[in-house]
């Protein structure tokens, strides 16, 4: 009997898990990471097991990834988010060659081949500029839910221009624009355009080749996706669960690596 394969992705905002067998996803989950990654990993494991009806002693081969991968005490192998995203996205969309993961602390651009092998990558800098962190900050300032950002932005009539790429400065710039009377819709459209420019710059540096996919938390924001699409002049590919791509890739790698 082959073992079950699990992919656990401990990110700075959310942690995700996918359990896999015979190339089929049996279950997945996504929970806030909190401040104790070790406990979060255990919680994910428990949740995955409950979804599949497995008992804990069942043989599971686990690949951990993400910022807190080293905290996954039961992991058999650790792989970077980049390799996991590559394997995950090529499984969902075999035509994808360029991927940008818009995460909470970084954005990452990847170019991959038809097998999901990583050919080239770039990460945004050490600071939060270019990551989805700014979206959380703006949502807090505007007192709207994260899922409302996209629809609001798409209703913009006249977007506000932002002069900074820095998440901290953008926050204070947003406050100034509000004071000048900018609407929520226009402000968000401006933020989305500024972030889209940074994200797309990373993609251009690895070389944009279609299909071009957006994944990670930022890809759930349709306003941001639209802004990147406008910048490129073509439609992007976004999985239905963009937060899970790396965990899925990790699970696929786990199945390949698991002892027979």
């Amino acid at each position, binding site marked *: 009997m082959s073992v079950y394969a699990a992919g656990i992705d401990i990110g700075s905002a959310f942690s995700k898990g996918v359990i896999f067998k015979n190339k089929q996803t049996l279950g997945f989950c996504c929970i806030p990471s909190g401040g104790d990654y070790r406990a979060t990993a255990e919680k994910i494991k428990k949740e995955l097991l409950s979804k599949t009806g497995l008992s804990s002693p069942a043989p599971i081969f686990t690949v951990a990834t993400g*910022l807190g991968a080293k905290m996954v005490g039961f992991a058999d192998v650790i*792989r*970077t*988010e*980049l*390799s996991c995203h590559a394997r995950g996205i090529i499984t969902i969309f075999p035509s994808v060659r360029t991927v940008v993961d818009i995460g909470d602390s*970084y954005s990452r651009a990847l*170019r991959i*081949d038809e*097998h999901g*092998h*990583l*050919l*080239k*990558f*770039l*990460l945004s*800098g*050490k600071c939060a500029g270019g990551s989805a962190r700014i979206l959380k900050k703006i949502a807090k300032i505007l007192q709207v839910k994260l899922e409302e950002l996209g629809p609001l932005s798409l209703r913009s009539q006249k977007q506000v221009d932002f002069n900074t790429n820095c998440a901290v400065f953008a926050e204070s710039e947003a406050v100034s624009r509000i004071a000048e009377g900018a609407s929520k819709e226009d402000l968000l459209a401006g933020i989305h355009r500024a972030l889209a420019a940074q994200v797309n710059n990373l993609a251009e*540096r690895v*070389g944009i080749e279609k299909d071009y996919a957006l994944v990670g938390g930022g890809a759930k924001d349709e306003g941001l996706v639209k802004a990147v699409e406008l910048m490129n002049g073509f439609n992007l590919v976004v999985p239905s669960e963009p937060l899970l791509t790396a965990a899925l890739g990790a699970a696929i790698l786990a199945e390949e690596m698991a002892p027979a």
Partner: protein
Amino acid sequence: MAEEQKKNENQKRRTATKAASMIGPMVKELIAATHRAKAEGKKLAYTFISCHYEEIVRAMDVVPVWTENFAGICGAKRDAERFLSRAESLDFSRSLCSYALCGIGFDQWREDLGEMPPDPPWGGQGRPDMMLSSGQILCDPRNKWYQAAQQFMPDVPNYNFSIPWPLYDDDIELTEIEPYYIKYIVSELKGLIAFLETQTQKRMDYDRLGELVNLTERTWNMIWETYELRRAVPTPMDTGDAMNTMVPWAFMMATQESYNFFAELNRELKEKIARKEGVIKDEKYRLLWGGGLPAWFALKDFNYFNSKGAVFPVETTYRLIEPIYRLNIPDTNDPLERIAYRWFRYWTYMYDKAKKRPGSEPDVERLIQFIEDYKIDGVVMHEAFSCRTWHLGLIWQLSQLKKIYKPVPFLTIGPDGTKNVEHRELPTLILESDIIDINSYSEADTRNRIDAFIETLESIKKQREN
């Protein structure tokens, strides 16, 4: 105390060669020697590396104090922050060259106290009697740093000289312009000598200068020959060590000790090659350190690459030498002309090669040469945010390289008509931090990037095997 010492030892970078492990004590001695010289009444001069004035300074018995070296030491010891902060408190922007900021912060503190700042790294930087600045290699801080330092040392003269070379252009005709450049550089060197003669009240001994120029040329040849030994597979020495062995090149040129050091390294590398002893046991990936100064506080990252099966047989950083025969320096007995030709031709000898490849540039040609000669699998560069001079061109160089090392397989036909499919994808990695400002550095982020890069190399290797 013993525990602390043990901890510090554990933090030391692991060197592959005995020669590299000797560098720490050598640098300490270099600094101690400047303090002894000062006590003996000799003249100290603040100096920058790669200005080709070493022979002149030494022939005049002026003792060089290498300010970039001292800043690097502060960085490597992770003790630069207090000097950077001090410069910042004097209204120098943190985005300026952090070498310069560190030196300015240290100098101001020393001048303020009238003695060395507390616990000065390796004894501290001695007060100069003069400063010799030059903005060549397009580095503006090397013009402005010492001028700024004069705010705290108004009595110390600063001599700023210029030894230019022509920037690359497709239609440049070197033979037409070289005589003008040589004439100008020689006049600048003469100006420097006149300044030193005034400061030391001594006349230049041109015979001695000639001997030192010969010694430098022999040392260049020895360095080139020695570093070329690193082409061996497995490579016996990598860039981690070269960031140490740069010391006798950068700070000891025109001394017999520098020549002897490289002769000894040459012998050591030949022995290691004979024993097939590499930097690591299982060499999987050969990388080129394609530019940028290193993060001096994070040299252990080279060991991290090694732990993943990657080695750096070659680097462009601190490899600013060529074998003298390759430069075809015209016969001349004038040591100043020899220096001028060496300078001019070092910077321009790749121009003809670059002209033959549309879109290329000399810097890119140098990368290509190393990639081919050293059987390179990937290129790593370091963008040090405060070193504008260097990191501005790195991304452009990589984009030019991308045009040559394309991600698609292509067909080649050998001389015998055999067809082969070749893959020339060359993955690249850009590390981002600084030379000495540790605030710019995240070990977790850097190692995450390295891990991903290694996975990329692995992917490409598998792809080629398939």
